[in-house]
């Protein structure tokens, strides 16, 4: 990715290069966002919902999300299920085998926080975000395939906000505001109050 980063920086410095950069971004993000191939890291009952999601009733192929058993073919790891301390090194190793750019969805309460195994358990990792960079969390025990569908669409929004230039993030509608963002309504109220 280093060569691409240098190219993107050079384009940003060049007058008129931004047009090329944004065009390349648009094509790259379109291609990435509509071909989010899944690494199905199914370790518990959430895997049943994950399997159901790829079959005909929910049909995730129409979103371009195809489950692949090989981490080297995939873009997004869906951690569906309880991860134990013994399993965690294997999950991390599979994650490291996935090529960049890659994303992670934590599906279900166990993958989010440990879930029902949070208290009084000696063997369960309290959330895969302790060792993986999770992009989208799905609550539920287990979540419905519709919830996974929503997560894939949210992840697509996030992917489409990315740029091949490292320091650059495109503004895309549909991204949920972070808690640190100023609320839009209050900013408007302050500006009208200052004017009067």
């Amino acid at each position, binding site marked *: 990715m280093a060569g691409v980063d240098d190219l993107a920086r050079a384009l940003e410095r060049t007058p008129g290069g931004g047009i090329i950069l944004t065009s390349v971004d648009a094509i790259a993000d379109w291609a990435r966002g509509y071909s989010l191939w899944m690494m199905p890291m199914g370790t518990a009952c959430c895997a049943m919902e994950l399997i159901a999601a790829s079959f005909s009733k929910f049909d995730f192929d129409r979103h371009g999300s195809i489950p692949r058993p090989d981490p080297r073919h995939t873009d997004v790891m869906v951690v569906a299920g309880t991860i134990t*301390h013994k399993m965690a090194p294997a999950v991390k190793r599979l994650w490291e085998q996935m090529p960049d750019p890659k994303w992670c969805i934590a599906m279900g309460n166990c993958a989010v926080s440990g879930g029902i195994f949070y208290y*009084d358990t000696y*063997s369960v990792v309290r959330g895969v975000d302790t060792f993986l960079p999770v992009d989208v969390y799905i609550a539920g025990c287990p979540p419905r395939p519709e919830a996974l569908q929503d997560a894939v669409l949210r992840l697509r929004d996030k992917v489409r906000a990315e740029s091949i230039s490292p320091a650059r993030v495109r503004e895309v509608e549909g991204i949920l505001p972070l808690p640190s963002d100023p609320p839009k309504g209050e900013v408007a109220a302050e500006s009208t109050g200052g004017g009067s």
Partner: protein
Amino acid sequence: MDIKELREHLCATYPDLCPLFSIEFGDGVLSVDRSRFHDAAADLKSLGFDRLGMVTAVDFGDELEMVYRLQSREMRAGIFVKTRLPREEAVIETVVDLWDAADWQEREVYDMFGIVFTGHPDLRRILLTDDWVGWPLRKDYDDPTIIRRPDYL
């Protein structure tokens, strides 16, 4: 074969095991001492209990109890065999020589309770990592990663 027939059959064949037999919650239970446990297991096998269904243990504080579930296809009956072990010296003879199914089951009991099976061919941890410290299913097990449930939950 129901429990009364099983008791009669057991008492007729092995009279020394007869006073150890009792009925708990509708199941036949044979409570034996550790010293004669392996002989009793061999006797039960020759009686017709050809299948070892389950091996587990219970922590009673000062004592650990081994629980074996034996089943017989021929008699269509099952029996529990229970043995109390002192906590400080939790050692018992293996039954791998009688039932091959005991191999991994005893490894799991060793993994979770730290009960040592003498004569076991390959006694090492089976579910936890090899460098794990402690026996997690003992009541006094503690681990810094465990988050204790607060009282209000």
